């Protein structure tokens, strides 16, 4: 139990659990901000997988770290854009609840 930190499988299972929580939250959240929080969880699970493979399996152990740094940069850009879209939606509809945004539902 105490040497779990030296095994690849531990990290892969943690990443899978975070990904599952993210998918669950993405489905059940009724607002856009809640869905964004769930999307961040999914990105975090993916980053853990990259870092675990980087530490245990990669012949060049910088690749996964650089990939994780790029994921962080993309997540920051995504958060900024999503937040400004959200402010726009709030201005037009006076709410960010998904029930009121049905014009896009096709």
């Amino acid at each position, binding site marked *: 139990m105490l040497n779990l930190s030296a095994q690849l499988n531990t990290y892969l299972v*943690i990443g899978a659990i975070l990904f*599952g929580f993210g*998918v669950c939250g993405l489905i059940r959240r009724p607002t856009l901000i809640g869905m964004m929080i769930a999307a961040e*969880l999914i990105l975090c699970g993916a980053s853990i997988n990259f870092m675990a493979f980087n530490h245990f399996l990669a012949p060049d152990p910088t690749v996964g*770290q650089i990939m994780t740094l790029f994921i962080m940069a993309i997540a920051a850009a995504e958060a900024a854009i999503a937040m400004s879209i959200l402010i726009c939606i709030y201005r037009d509809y006076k*709410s960010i609840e998904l029930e009121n945004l049905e014009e896009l539902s096709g």
Partner: protein
Amino acid sequence: MNPTLLSPEGLSGLVFLGLVAVTIAGAVIATASKRLIRSLTGLVACFMGVAGLYYFLGSPFVAMMQLLIYVGAIAIVIAFGIMLAEPDESKLATKKSGLSGVLSLVAGAAVAWGLAVAALRADWMRPAVKINDGSVRDVGMSLLTTYSMVFELVSVVLLVAILGSLALARIGRDKE
């Protein structure tokens, strides 16, 4: 063989278990709580636990960047979004049927179970030789040589994101 509890390896194993507990508990709070600000707090706890896991994976640099970018920047942006839009999920949750909650749990559990089983069953190949030790110096070297193109492109993406969010948020402001 198992290290004893009070040896250095045993203590670091205990710290690792604590970090895993913080990560999973944060993810549970982020997904399950009714108020958005509480679920943001859970997300922050989850990010801090993950930063600790990165430390155990041998890269303190990425752990610090995780704290700086995710906890310091993204969580604050989301907090501002919550404060500006004031969504009240507690009223919405009663309107939704209970079925969607169950279905989302089933979907999340299925995805997590599938990924975990696939990861545990696979036969991972250990590398015969490592060409460097993944230190901050090596990360900097490959960022500025092998991955310099991607590095520049990411900075352009961030610039476009800043300009885009400014342009989007500005629409409709002059009329008021």
